[in-house]
């Protein structure tokens, strides 16, 4: 059948385009604008070329060293988050009941942390982690551990990681659980007939069938953890020192604390490009695996 060409079809997408224009494109162009100019008082702008970017990407400048330090912390954080949450999520999804009355209550309880807003999570944990009155902090201190999330960098990192794992492993669990439920029973029955071990069932049936949902889980968890802001902002304030100062925290400090709009704009654009590029690499790598397997 021949496709008809009718440019009036653009009218159908026009409303969405207009919304996107105002919600994303125009604000972003403002950022691009800031990143290429220097602002004086009373809104006098001067063309500044690429020098904000050159400063930012040069680790020997003040802003450059802050940026590279925060970027390194971000990468480590996201990597550790994925390393913990993905295996843990799969393991917990495997442990959930497959059918029966317990399925509903289990899923609801698991999904609860995801329903709590970020700043509430932060506030909850800020109190929860306090060494004097917080259950978590006091319990760790009571066990004789040296724990103080506002003064000790290791404690601070540990706390932020625990918060993220608590808050977002449920997403990986739910995605994996849905993926596992989609595997037809005969696969398990055939594995029993073939006398496959539990481990072999996991490796040869469950993991390959989970691949698609895991691509999704890893992408979502990477993006969200790479953009982490509220938890360290509320719980540690980016400290102690700059131990938990991630890119987003530093960005807000530069933009709103120091009102250094040029640097902040350049930084947010680079930050944005890094996020998109890494997501693209993840996605391509994991979908290419599919094609590789078929040949």
């Amino acid at each position, binding site marked *: 059948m021949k496709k008809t060409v009718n440019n009036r079809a653009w009218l159908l997408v026009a409303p969405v385009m207009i919304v996107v224009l105002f919600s994303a494109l125009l604000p972003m162009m403002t950022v691009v604008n800031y990143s290429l100019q220097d602002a004086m008082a009373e809104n006098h702008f001067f063309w500044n070329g690429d020098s904000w970017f050159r400063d930012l990407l040069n680790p020997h400048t003040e802003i450059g060293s802050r940026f590279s330090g925060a970027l390194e912390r971000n990468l480590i954080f996201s990597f550790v988050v994925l390393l913990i949450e993905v295996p843990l999520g799969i393991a917990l999804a495997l442990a959930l009941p497959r059918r029966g009355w317990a399925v509903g209550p289990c899923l609801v309880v698991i999904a609860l942390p995801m329903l709590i807003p970020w700043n509430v999570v932060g506030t909850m944990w800020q109190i929860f982690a306090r060494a004097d009155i917080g259950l978590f902090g006091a319990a760790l201190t009571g066990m004789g551990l040296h724990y103080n999330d506002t003064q000790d960098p290791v404690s601070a990192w540990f706390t932020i990681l625990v918060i993220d794992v608590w808050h977002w492993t449920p997403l990986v669990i739910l995605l994996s659980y849905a993926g596992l439920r989609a595997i*037809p029973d*005969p696969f398990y029955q*055939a594995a*029993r*007939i*073939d006398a*496959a071990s539990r481990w072999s069932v996991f490796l*040869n049936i469950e993991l390959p069938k989970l691949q698609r949902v895991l691509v999704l889980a890893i992408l979502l968890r990477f993006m969200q953890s790479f953009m982490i802001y509220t938890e360290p902002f509320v719980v540690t304030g980016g400290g102690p020192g700059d131990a938990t100062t991630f890119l987003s925290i530093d960005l807000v400090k530069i933009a709103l604390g120091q009102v250094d709009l040029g640097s902040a704009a350049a930084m947010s654009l680079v930050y944005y490009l890094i996020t998109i590029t890494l997501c693209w690499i993840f996605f391509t790598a994991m979908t290419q695996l599919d094609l590789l*397997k078929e040949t």
Partner: protein
Amino acid sequence: MARIDLVDLAHSYGGHHADPASFALKPITMTWRQGGAYALLGPSGCGKTTLLNLISGIVTPSRGKILFDGVDITPLTTQKRNIAQVFQFPVIYDTMTVGQNLAFPLRNRGVPKVEIEARVAEIARLLDLTPYLSRKATGLTADAKQKISLGRGLVRSDVAAVLFDEPLTVIDPELKWQLRSKLKALHRDLDLTMIYVTHDQTEALTFADTVVVMHDGRVVQSGTPAELFEKPAHTFVGYFIGSPGMNVVAAEVRGREARIDGHTIALDRSYDALPPGAKIEIGVRPEFVDVVAPAPELLSATIERIDDLGRVQFARVRVGDAKFAARVPPGFAACDGAAGLKFDPAHVHVYADSRLVEGAAQ
């Protein structure tokens, strides 16, 4: 390799205390002999897959025992039962090559490597999978994948039985025929007991030497294709096997005579001791009823239409309220749709409450 005995075996998905009438499999006792090619035939929901899953141990019976060579294996798990099963839809291990897929059941059981290689090569040759052995199994077509599933079912030489659960559903008709012949050849070559579940009578009759017909959770007849055709033990077998199915009509039977619509049909045997109060019917296959020119001594019928099946023609006729299918002999010319029905007495059977009644010979 074993004889399989089912002793008073029954299953209900509703638990032990469910109403016996609701059992997916009503209590049965039967024997499957070593090396037999069996087909379990019946419509969807008749309990055939349940029976298969009970034998393989995927489902634990609510009642009764399963014996392999006289040894009770009911409490054993699927892994320990030494049984192979092939499912309706292809099951392959995505991570493995075709060869590794075929070797998997043997490798898990610790079979020596040399033996695995020999066996995999043999099965691959029998199923024409040899060129694909080192390919990943994921990228293949559905029927190639199903061949791999079949291969995994056949690769173990020591199994008590290989169970097939409608294995050719996903296969194209042309290939279906080939694969079925292949399975039959494999059955001869490998000397395995095979139980083949299907709802397709052609599939059952061409594959098996013994066909077990199931209906509503019961085995209604077990016999050779010829027995099922010539002497259905239950009116259901009559309907279900043969196309068109057997004619079954209510009749009054006395001695060697059956009366339908005021007309008397001669029977080959004598039925004097019919259970009182039972619903009495006679059954006769269309192949053993001829439509001929009307005559006073014949049961008269009205022809509604004639179906030409190519090799043979069947007439759909009406006798009073009852419908009949009857063979149209070559050279028959219908006049005004009126015809007489000529029965072959040797093939007219009498049923009491749907079950065959054996007549007395004299």
